[in-house]
């Protein structure tokens, strides 16, 4: 069975039939119009009867009857074309002829001709209407129209004024809304200099280079280069990015424009765009007047992005790293290889950098406006340049070189739009990281120079060593806290103890002043002492900073360690030492409390398990080589499981979880051995902690070595009788622990301590 299609127009012999509605719609319209006009006549004359109203309308509105007549003729034409094929054929031939004639004209000529005809028809219709209105001949009426227009000009003027008034209101509102958020500083307004920024010399040197090019652009331009137009300073909070910008403002001989982070957050759509345009208009003006300008966007992440995921250039950032720190495995791959791995990680892990910061900023169009202003079309600007010159037949002048140095600062570089960071907009990106030790020393010295203190050079060096992640802001705050402590003690000069206490306060928060019951105090002290002794014995890459059993908001006690050097690589032995320190609490509690242990080890086990997992699955520090992360991503399965062929291989290629557990178990055994060998040292340290609550790393060493420390005198712990007393106290505490009562013995007190 073939499918029947509706016949094409060219196959038809007669015209397609109109629907009833199409046949009568105009007549219906004219009829309704006629009756409405008759009704209007009756309303106009109360004496008029309905029939007379119809007659009157018919007599007075002849044009309506003419239209009715035309429509009837048209419908008759259609009806004939629907009924009679020859009639329809004649018209088709006629239309084809007209079409051919029209097609002889080019499209452009047809358009121009059509435009002329339309205008003529419009003028003719206008003259007829005006003739009817003025009761004059159409031609004469056409000449009367301009006069009427002239008479109506004041009225038109009023209307225009009303329209402009509304527009001006809007313009005024938007103008006011687009103000603010931008401050301009001129040379010498700001006193901060590069010498006030400490510990970031490498970044400062690069910034100085940019300023040099801005102030003497010919240095690079005469050799065919161009002045770098944008700098991004990114890094952790408090590392001095804003201070650096402030020092730029102080150093440069050009105006410095500071843009508030909230400048582009608006209530209304479009205001952000106006602000950006306004800002760059100002920048161009300043750049021309002063030969250059520096604009600084603080917290540039507030500009937002357009939701595009971007393989970050900040691959050394530990949170956004694809290859992990510090050895960027990507360096050894080809570009396609890097791309493959990067995309796999992003799509497979749903780990989209900047994904959390999609959108934001000043709303629709603000970021795009900024991008365009930073590197858009080089448009000719100015009314005279664009309009007057063109009217005189001249070409508009090319825009001059606006020397605008854009500086942005953010601690969330992943939240920035990819297009913002491309070369040409932001040419240079500098990480303002944690200051180096030398930088920290310089920073401590700088802030200490502002106060009275008694710290020696060695102490400042040590302070810089034990505060590896201290930023300028942290150092400033610590010194200030130390000063507060000194003043509270009735002194005006800061001592070493003040600084250490201030550091502990900042690191740990204020102690909760909770008094443990004796047996629990002893248990906590033993727990922390196990960590401390183990850290002292096996963890050579970290130094103990402090040990405490003062309860904080989320811990009962703590042994904090710090890296003594700026170290960028980590080794298997170090991680094993970390695990030993972590599991020492479990091993120690079981050993000293007859196999019992507290829930306080949960955090330690979590840390130990995490490190062991990474060692086994990621870092190549276990019994297999393949990366578990890669295996999971590519769904190839981990080595091990039940696929081993003989027992030896099976043991080697055990499932990852089993291997981690085995590794941890063997390290736990090792920890028990070490603690057993040093059980008196553990109890000695626990005694020191119970006695002093919080002790420094040096005190821990003093207890271990039987020496005198800053706070604790460790010498009594080298006397066997004292150790026996401590042991007896411990035994009494264990009994009390089991019976849930107070120990029979009180904690021994040694004279020398």
């Amino acid at each position: 069975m073939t499918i029947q299609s509706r016949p094409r127009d060219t196959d038809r012999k007669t015209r397609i039939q109109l629907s009833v509605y199409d046949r009568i719609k105009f007549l219906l319209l004219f009829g309704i119009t006629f009756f409405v006009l008759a009704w209007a006549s009756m309303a106009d004359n109360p004496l008029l009867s309905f029939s007379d109203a119809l007659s009157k309308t018919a007599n007075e509105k002849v044009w309506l009857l003419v239209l009715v007549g035309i429509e009837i003729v048209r419908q008759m034409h259609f009806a004939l074309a629907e009924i009679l094929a020859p009639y329809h054929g004649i018209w088709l031939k006629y239309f084809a002829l007209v079409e051919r004639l029209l097609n002889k004209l080019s499209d452009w000529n047809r358009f121009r001709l059509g435009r002329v005809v339309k205008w003529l028809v419009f003028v003719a219709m206008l003259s007829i209407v005006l003739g009817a209105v003025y009761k004059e001949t159409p031609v004469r009426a056409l000449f009367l129209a301009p006069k009427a227009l002239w008479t109506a000009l004041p009225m038109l003027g009023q209307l225009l004024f009303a329209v402009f008034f509304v527009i001006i209101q809007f313009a005024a509102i938007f103008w006011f809304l687009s103000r603010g958020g931008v401050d301009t500083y001129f040379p010498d307004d700001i006193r901060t200099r590069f010498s006030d920024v400490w510990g970031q010399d490498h970044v400062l040197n690069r910034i100085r280079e940019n300023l040099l090019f801005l102030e003497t652009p010919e240095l690079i331009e005469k050799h065919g280069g161009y002045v770098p137009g944008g700098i991004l300073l990114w890094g952790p909070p408090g590392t001095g990015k804003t201070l650096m910008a402030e020092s730029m403002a102080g150093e440069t001989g050009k105006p410095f424009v500071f843009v508030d982070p909230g400048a582009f957050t608006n209530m209304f759509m479009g205001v952000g765009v106006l602000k950006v345009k306004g800002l760059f208009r100002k920048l161009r003006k300043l750049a021309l007047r002063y030969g250059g300008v520096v604009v600084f966007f603080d917290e540039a992440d507030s500009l937002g992005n357009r939701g595009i995921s971007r393989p970050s250039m900040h691959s050394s950032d530990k949170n956004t790293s694809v290859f992990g720190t510090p050895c960027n495995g990507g360096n050894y791959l080809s570009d396609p290889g890097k791309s493959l791995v990067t995309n796999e990680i992003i799509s497979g892990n749903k780990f989209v950098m900047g994904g959390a910061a999609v959108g934001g900023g000043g709303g629709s169009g603000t970021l795009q406006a900024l991008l365009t202003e930073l590197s858009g079309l080089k448009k000719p600007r100015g009314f005279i340049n664009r309009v007057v010159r063109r009217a005189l037949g001249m070409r508009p002048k090319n825009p001059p070189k606006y020397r605008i140095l854009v500086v942005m600062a953010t601690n969330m570089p992943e939240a920035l739009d990819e297009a913002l960071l491309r070369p040409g907009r932001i040419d240079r990106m500098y990480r303002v990281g944690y200051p180096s030790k030398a930088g920290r020393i310089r920073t401590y010295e700088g802030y200490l120079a502002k106060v009275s203190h008694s710290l020696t050079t060695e102490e400042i060096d040590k302070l810089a060593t034990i505060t590896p992640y201290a930023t300028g802001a942290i150092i400033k705050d610590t010194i200030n806290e130390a000063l507060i402590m000194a003043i509270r003690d009735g002194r005006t000069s800061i001592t070493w103890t003040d600084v250490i206490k201030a550091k502990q306060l900042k690191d740990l928060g204020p102690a909760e002043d909770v008094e443990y019951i004796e047996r629990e105090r002893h248990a906590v002290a033993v727990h922390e002492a196990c960590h401390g002794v183990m850290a002292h014995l096996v963890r050579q890459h970290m130094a103990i900073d402090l040990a405490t059993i003062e309860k904080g908001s989320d811990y009962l006690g703590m042994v904090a360690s710090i890296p003594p050097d700026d170290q960028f690589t980590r080794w298997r032995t170090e991680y094993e030492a970390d695990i030993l320190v972590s599991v020492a609490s479990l091993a120690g509690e079981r050993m000293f409390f007859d196999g019992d242990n507290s829930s306080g080890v949960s955090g330690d086990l979590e840390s130990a398990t995490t490190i062991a997992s990474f060692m086994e699955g990621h870092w190549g520090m276990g019994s297999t080589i393949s990366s578990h992360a890669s295996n999971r991503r590519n769904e190839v399965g981990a080595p091990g499981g039940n696929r081993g062929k003989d027992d030896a291989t099976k043991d080697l290629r055990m499932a990852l979880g089993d291997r981690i557990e085995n590794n941890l178990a063997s390290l736990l055994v090792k920890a028990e051995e070490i603690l057993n060998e040093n059980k008196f040292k553990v109890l000695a340290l626990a005694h020191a902690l119970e006695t002093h609550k919080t002790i420094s790393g040096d005190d821990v060493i003093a207890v271990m070595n039987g020496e005198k420390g800053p706070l604790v005198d460790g010498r009594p712990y080298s006397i066997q009788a004292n150790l026996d007393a401590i042991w007896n106290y411990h035994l009494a505490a264990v009994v009390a622990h089991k019976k849930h009562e107070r120990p029979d013995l009180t904690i021994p007190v040694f004279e020398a301590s």
Partner: protein
Amino acid sequence: MHALSKRISATVLACALLVLTGCSQSQIYAADKASGAYVAIPKGWNKIAKSDLDKAESKSTAGGAAEKLASVIWQEAYTTSPKVKAEEILNLQAPEGAAVYARVRDLNFEEINSVSYNTLRNLILPLTTWLADPAKANPKFVLIDDYERTEKVARGIRTIYTFADAAGVSTTVDQTALISDDHSRIYILIVRAKTEYYNKHVDELLAIGDSFTVRGDK
């Protein structure tokens, strides 16, 4: 195809009906839309335009005639005979056939203060005097009807009476004089004919007076 032809025929018929309806009106609708005065005149009567009436009135030598003419807003006359001239409308001689005269005029300050229903009755002839003292009355004076008429924005008196003109011919006058509610404007309609003619066409002539409608300014 048959249904289509029927539809076309129906459409054409409907349109033809519409055209036929518009041949001519059954009456003449005299009106001044600005002052809101309307009157329906039988078809076939002859119109005397305002300009002719103004011209005739301007020849009057009576005191204050020019001032009154200046305050006329609308005046129009219709007669059964085409021979009747504007001057004949404005005098008291019986016209040939019947004549209708409509007039709207603003009153001056003095008139506003003095106008009353009796003033309206005495518009052409001193009817109240004749009624009060029959000895002084026209010999053929007969008051046929006299009643108050109230319109939307005006009120007044319609009086129908007979009197003898200067030639002694008995003439019947149907005069309606309405004063606007604020007393500032007078609306007048006078239908008159020889009494003999009037009596023959009484229904037709009464209908003219009945149709006189005042709606006031638009």
